[in-house]
């Protein structure tokens, strides 16, 4: 496996792409909005452009914040549409350089870490098997299905840990557990299932910094 260099230049406009984390799979050029796939042996201009409308948000790309005495830096931003409206997903790096998702939907903030395959049970319930208010036992814990819907990607910017395509959509289920914990199961159209586990965050406990 070839490790990525510290920086790339945008194949579209030539501007430098300062990659903030080693395992970025996708980046949007800050200068020309070109979407670039980062591959082990180089990069590829995806050719699509994604422009997200500016909306009021506590979290801003490149603006550091702290929560519970830990510092975080948002480096990537996705916006999804679902039945009720829109929500934002921020790919953030903690002070040790580890990545996690911060989901924001009208004041509901959730920190979630993607679970690796070896952390998941061998059989996850199919999306159609999950019903609202249903109790599910997963990862040695009881969960309650509190939301099930489908999301469609409206756009993205910054640097992301996985390839995402505008318009791509998937089904998802939120499973709520004790102590403000949350498990999200995502069902892609190609049949793959991914999971993230985290907890609800009080936005009033988030302290916005001034640095980047």
């Amino acid at each position, binding site marked *: 496996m070839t490790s990525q260099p510290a920086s790339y230049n945008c194949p579209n406009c030539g501007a430098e792409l300062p990659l903030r984390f080693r395992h970025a799979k996708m980046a949007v050029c800050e200068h020309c909005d070109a979407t670039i796939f980062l591959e082990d042996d180089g990069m590829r201009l995806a050719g699509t452009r994604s422009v997200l409308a*500016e*909306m*009021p*948000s*506590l979290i801003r790309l490149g603006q550091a914040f702290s929560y519970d005495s830990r510092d975080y830096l948002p480096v990537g931003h996705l916006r999804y549409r679902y039945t*009720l*409206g*829109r929500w934002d997903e921020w790919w953030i790096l903690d002070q040790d350089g580890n990545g996690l998702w911060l989901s924001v*939907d*009208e*004041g*509901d903030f959730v920190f979630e870490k993607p679970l690796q395959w070896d952390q998941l049970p061998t059989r996850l319930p199919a999306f159609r098997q999950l019903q609202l208010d249903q109790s599910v036992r997963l990862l040695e814990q009881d969960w309650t299905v509190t939301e099930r819907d489908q999301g469609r990607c409206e756009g993205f910017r910054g640097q992301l840990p996985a390839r995402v395509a505008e318009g791509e959509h998937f089904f998802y289920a939120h499973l*709520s557990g*004790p*102590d*403000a914990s949350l498990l999200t199961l995502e069902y892609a159209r190609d049949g793959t299932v991914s999971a993230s586990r985290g907890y*609800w965050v009080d*936005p*009033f406990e988030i*302290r*916005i910094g001034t640095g980047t």
Partner: protein
Amino acid sequence: MSTQHQDTRPETTARVRSVQCRGCGAPLTLHGGGHRILSLSCAYCGTVMDPRHDYAVLAKFSTQQAPFSPFEPGMQGEIHGVLFTIIGMVGWEAQGDVWVDLQLYSETHGYAWLSYERGHVCFVRKTRHLPNALVWNLAPKQSVTDGLRTYRLYERYMATINYVAGELTWVAAVGNRVQIVEAIAPPLLLSGERSSTETEYHLSEYLDPAAVYRAFQVSGQIWPRAGVHAAQPYHGPFKDALSKAAFPFAILSGVLAAALWLFGSGVQIHQETFLPGDLQTGRHSAEIEITRPNRLVALEMETNLDNAWVDFDIDVLKDNEEIFSMGKAFSFYEGRDDEGYWSEGSRSARALFKVPEPGRYRLNIQLADGGTGETGTTPPETTLELSVRQGYISSYYFVILLIITGIATLIGPGARIAFERRRWKAVLDDDDDD
């Protein structure tokens, strides 16, 4: 109000637009309440509409009457540095009390409530740190935790909605009943609301009403706070400061008073007994050698009075010349009644004086007046045991200082206890009634 110094003001203010009420046609102002709004209620005719289905009419409650509230939909203000817009309003009643919950919306921080009751204001948000379900079965003052802090159960009651207006994140209907449980850790109040379909928990924070009025630019009639709110923190900075300042002085004066009481009684330099005959005619004592001038000399006197009183004239003599004179009264009564033994007065007394120079002194003591029983005017016969001590140090002024500083020390805690009694009185009285 601002406790977080961060720029969270949305880049755009709430988007205001209007729709027509499907019930009465009145223009209804929408204050941009986000995508989780489930109902819009007309303040004029009580029609409840569904904003997600073209404002279809869900219900109509024409008898509702707007409750008093200094806040109203459309107002904007900052709470903890976050700009909120009031988008809806729900009136409640329970056990004779009425209050108003105002739905808040922030484009950055989502939904919250401002609860107004009798001049008290709380900032209310949904909590995901839930208490054990046993909270519904606890008695007042029993402890419950949400994992973050410990609360004491305050009360349980049924509440009924009597008014709805504006945009709400739930379909509120006049007449809906909700069971509520409240536990407090002032200024916080953890509440559970149980309806026929769900149970939700909220965390309320008691706010300074004046600061909230300023933040939301409330004008017009503002009612003063009535009573003590369940989540209201005790606030007595002057009394607390007074108690804090007085405490070390109370300790110091107490220690000094105790030390003087134990070690300040001086040295006995003379002891003598005066018989009844001596006192009737007056008699000089033996010579008393006083070596410490300008220091207190204490005369400790003990009589054997019984249901009688006497006045003695006491002269201090040097070289048979009177240099000081004083009177001392004794009175002692005792008996038995329906409640048992009783007594009043004392057979003993202390007199203090100073002499200007060392030397030999005498005392002349004579009975001046007296009586026996309740009305007798004949002076009783009594002996007088006299003990003279020099170098006596009085703890009187330190005792007075101890009393004053002790009272000052207790003012803060006392006010706090009285405040807590008022906080719990309503619910504990209700509990007693049950």
